[in-house]
């Protein structure tokens, strides 16, 4: 087969399209099992939290629920959003702003017995740095407005 510049360009375009489709498929495959959904305790009570899937659990740390474990580095607490609550186990150093009655987002997985095992805990760093996930409704609404415009 003789290759003319025109054929070669067509070939390159075809290869580029295949690569793009490949990237899209790869991304879809990756996203299907590895994206973490944000859930509140009510969502989980309603059965919207699959066991073993990566999740982000958001709510308030229930007052009086924080228990330090004997190893000195693990804690148990309850995340609540009013009507529902979920027990959480976390091993690690908690952020400084983590406290009872404060907002929290825990990243981790739900276990079969209903316990949420967190790998990471997010809390507010500074007054001007407010993750919308922290229940900062004003910031959240603004963010959504920006996205939908």
């Amino acid at each position: 087969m003789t290759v003319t510049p025109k054929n070669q360009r067509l070939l390159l375009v075809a290869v580029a399209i295949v690569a793009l489709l490949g990237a899209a498929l790869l991304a879809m495959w990756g996203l299907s099992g590895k994206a973490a959904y944000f859930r509140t305790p009510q969502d989980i009570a309603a059965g919207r939290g699959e066991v073993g899937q990566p999740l982000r659990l958001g709510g308030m740390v229930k007052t009086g629920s924080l228990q330090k474990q004997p190893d000195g580095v693990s804690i148990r607490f309850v995340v609540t959003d009013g009507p529902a609550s979920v027990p959480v186990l976390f091993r690690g150093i908690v952020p400084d702003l983590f406290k009872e009655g404060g907002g929290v987002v825990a990243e981790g997985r739900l276990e079969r017995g209903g316990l949420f095992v967190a790998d990471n805990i997010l809390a507010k760093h500074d007054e001007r740095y407010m993750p919308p996930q922290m229940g900062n409704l004003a910031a959240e609404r603004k963010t959504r407005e920006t996205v939908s415009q």
Partner: protein
Amino acid sequence: MIAEAGLAALWLAAALALLQLGVAFAGPRIGGVRAIAVPAAVAQGLLTLFAFAALITLFVRTDLSVQLVAANSHSLKPFIYRFAGAWGNHEGSMLLWVTVLAVAGAALALLERRLPLDTIRATLGAQAALALGFFGFLLIASNPFARLNPAPPEGQGLNPLLQDPGLAFHPPTLYLGYVGLSVAFSLAVGALITRDVGPALARAMRPGVLGAWVLLTLGITAGSYWAYYELGWGGWWFWDPVENASLMPWLAATALLHSINVLAARGGLRAWTIMLAVVAFSMSMVGTFLVRSGILTSVHSFAVDPRRGTFILGLLVVYVGGALALFAWRIGTVREGACFNLVSREGALVANNLLLSVILGTVFVGTLYPIFVEALTGEKISVGPPYFNAVSGPLVLLLAVLLFVGPLLNWRIDRRPVLRRTIAPALVAVAALVATVALGPMSLLSRLGLSVAAGLTVASILPLIGRNLRRTPLATWGMALSHFGVAVAVAGAACDSAFTRETLTAVRPGESASVGPWTIRFAGVDPVAGPNWTAVQGHLVATRGATRNLFEPESRAFSDPQTQTNEAAIRTYLDGQLYTVLGRQESDGRWQLRLWWKPFVTLIWLGGSLIALGGTLALIGRWWRGWRQRVRAREAWA
């Protein structure tokens, strides 16, 4: 007065950008590009530099009658943070962005003398159009010089996470690279307008792209190390959307850097190179939108103001949409380049470009997916390291394997038995793979990473073998060094994920903990104080064999604004880093300690620096060659 002078300089610069754009539209009718557009571009660069210097002066003096200073600075801060704090906030960092854009435009106007005048005129017009939009954003939606009346008695201070020497280096370097890519964008647009896409364009684009890419590489490397030691999580790349915002232009610029060489040397890949030049700076603008619009939350997002997001989104749509429309309209008139065989340097570079584009595509999708899902369904999701590592890890390794062969191939067609030359690196890679089995259990990706890194270390030297080293161009040395840097960085990342040992424990003074080969005795804590913080400082004595070192991690409490941060204590050894973090005190008197032993982790940043150094060598080599040629031509003519 300084604030007003800075503001006036910005307005004047915006007016000059308008003039420069006008010259481009008027075309050849009004005289010389050199008479109007070039001086206008240079003056813009100087005026924005002046405005930027004015802002720095206000910050250093802590002039609290300026709103931005009052909101982000504090008179008790050390000098370096009052200085660098000028860009540690939304408005200041946008001013830095615009300054780099204007200075890049000035450099382009001054230094580019080889392209036809028409193309230069159109290019400077495109650069002016970019500048005009971002001047508008700065002046209308993010004025850094707004006054505050009455002035407060004291400023609110700077986010303590930003109070680090890294702030002085990381943002300016990153922005120089990020926004420096605008030069490639404008040249591509200019060449499309004048239908002048060819090797000369590639040669004009190359220094700008190479320089921007070097700085972007350095900025990303510095940012990675900063996050590693400052955030105290022991990781070096978090796949935070903001990190991805800097990685995406880098991926596009890396692809562009390679395809430019095909265009410059062989006249091929014309449309593709133009497309990459547009995509690279578009990714910079997408990144700016992600970081500056408040749509994402991270240490980089300073304020949530929906108007700003909409403004940048508007600019993004106009510029990217405009450039793509121009591309679609004019690309039919771009001639095809020279043909090449699949097994050739061009073929390998096409494969390199496709792999980089696929990585770029997956990072792009992963970064923006949560925003779209939330906008469409209201469902909040987050995409993190599990996705990015699984998707991009294997692609990076594939890219590294391609480096075994690619640089050895000839242009156009290669009939030599090339595979024979890659036997040495292939054998090394296989030997390394076998050796990893003896090292114990680790993930498949780390195993393959170590193997490929070992092979690539050898393969990166091959292009230099069999050449007269004294006559080898500096650019070739640079290429070999950068590819070696890739091997080093991959090795560091693989070592980090394969060999890191972590210990999380709570100890009383006098007790010990161990991590990897180290025994760490906790001696106790003491209070210490800095200029604007107080801290609890832990005393740890780490021993391994005869080595014995003191570590003093701190838990710092800042007063303005009230925040706590962990200052990790880290020490680098020849075979790795020991990383210690002091946590909280338990009610029973024990202190939490988090300890990491990270063998060879520093290779990651060493690799990044080598990649940048290779680029610098290539830049110097090309410049030197061009200069020598000009001198010879002048002598021959005389």
